């Protein structure tokens, strides 16, 4: 039912004018609240339906809004089903608990600790006596919120058995105690190359205590 808008000026009755103003003010608040709550509910419904975007309030493409074209185009429904299936596969692919993310220029490589497919984090070249540094991003995709994860490293070994001890690696922050579900955290990694280290390539891993599926291969180049 159409709601009349109250005129804001009533001749010969100043109080009526004030009442009209108060009504307009209240109406502004109520109407705005209704609009924003409607939008939020629409977004929730869209999220439950796993659409990439919330649906528009009024279909703008001639469809009837339920995913099928008003003209009965069956191809549209097929396209929607395919999009939903792709989204489901994407969600299954996110089942690892933590994802390392190498922040190396634009060529970014995700490291999946569960299936062992991993790109290496490259540190160096660094001269003996200096640190080889780099950084990674960690993203918690699943798991108990707030679970702390302390980072540590294995020893780094070269092809000839030469080694850099695990304790040469340090992390900032060392303990990810604010790590929460769906959050991201940048971690700086530094490996102090010993003065006596021989030039060459050393391999090792970064691990996260409490997260057994996670491992990030690391390659350190020690300069001659």
């Amino acid at each position: 039912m159409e709601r009349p808008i109250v005129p804001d000026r009533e001749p010969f009755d100043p109080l009526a004018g004030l009442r009209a103003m108060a009504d307009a003010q209240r109406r502004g608040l109520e109407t705005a609240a209704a609009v924003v709550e409607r939008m939020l509910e629409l977004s929730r419904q869209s999220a439950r339906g796993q659409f990439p975007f919330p649906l528009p309030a009024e279909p703008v493409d001639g469809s009837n809004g339920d995913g099928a074209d008003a003209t009965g185009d069956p191809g549209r429904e097929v396209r929607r089903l395919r999009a939903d299936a792709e989204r489901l596969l994407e969600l299954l692919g996110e089942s690892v608990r933590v994802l390392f993310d190498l922040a190396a220029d634009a060529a970014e490589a995700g490291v999946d600790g569960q299936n062992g497919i991993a790109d290496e984090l490259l540190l160096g070249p660094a001269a003996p006596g200096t640190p080889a540094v780099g950084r990674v991003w960690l993203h918690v995709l699943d798991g108990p919120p707030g679970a702390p994860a302390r980072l540590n490293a294995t020893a780094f070994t070269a092809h000839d058995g030469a080694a850099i001890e695990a304790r040469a690696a340090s992390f900032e922050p060392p303990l990810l105690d604010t790590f929460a579900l769906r959050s991201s955290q940048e971690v700086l990694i530094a490996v102090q190359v010993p003065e006596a280290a021989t030039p060459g390539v050393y391999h090792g891993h970064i691990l996260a205590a409490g997260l057994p599926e996670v491992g990030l291969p690391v390659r350190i180049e020690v300069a001659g």
Partner: protein
Amino acid sequence: MSEVLTSSVEADLARYGAMTRDALSLYVPDMEPRRHLWDLVAEYPGRGGKAIRPALCLATAVAFGGEVDEALPSAAALELLHNAFLVHDDIEDASLLRRGRPTLHAEHGVPLAINAGDALVVLAGSALRDNRRRLGSRLASRIGDEFDLMARRTIEGQARELGWRRDGVCDLEPDDYLDLIMHKTCWYTTIHPLRVGALIGSLGRVDLDPLVRFGFYLGAAFQIRDDLLNVVGDEAKYGKESCGDLYEGKRTLMIIHLLRQARDDDRRAVERFLAMERPQRTPGDVAEMVELMRHYGSLDFTRAFGLGIAEAATDAFEVAFAAVSDSPERRFLHDLIAWMLERDA
């Protein structure tokens, strides 16, 4: 609002604006063709502006625990897209003035202006991709989704408004107006910068719904204020063509109120006015509409309606920022509410 607070907010806005313009300039190529493209691209950002959007984004990011640098690419992307929208909107609306000077298409012609607007959209994408280096792919992807959603909402709102004007739609309610500006204005002016700032600052941990409420109330009250200034504001201060919305036939809250209140011949006069093309609307026609708005109390109704929403914005801020500890950025955001709702330019 006191003069001290006003100058403090404006100083912060100027600081955030300068930071954003510096960041934004990195994405505008310093190369040929300057005269026909890149100089035009730099034109609107170079004219200044209030920088409300980047300021909201940057301050929110810091208030929620982040660093300004982390949010700068997102702020620059938003500002670039905002300028792209302005270029294209000015053409769609046949506007003559932008930030106190002739619109881009008025100075350089429609084809070059459209092309410059397209370039601004592309540059916004470049800025957005820089988030991957600073924030990692997951958060950057989330922000990218937010950006797409914001752009889509804005374009939907613009389509709806242009459609109303083309089809001569007059049977509208304040609810329709608010729904329109939720899409067309609020999402990209306030809601998106707040959401993205909070995502960056909290590393994706914050509930975004309270920010949607705060952003909408703030953006709606701001837009209503803007609509009023368009009719009763000082053109020199306001920087846009006085009564430009009326010349363009926009369905503002004042016009919607007038359409519902005007009787007989007056209503028919309003409908005739809205059915005209822009060039047909004379200063006399526009003055008649302003007089009718005054007569039927449409300006006072709009003021009061906006005031109700402004009060909701203040309450919604306290909810959205309840978990955020006191900081200069939080205080700036709080003070920005009053500044946005009491401004005259």
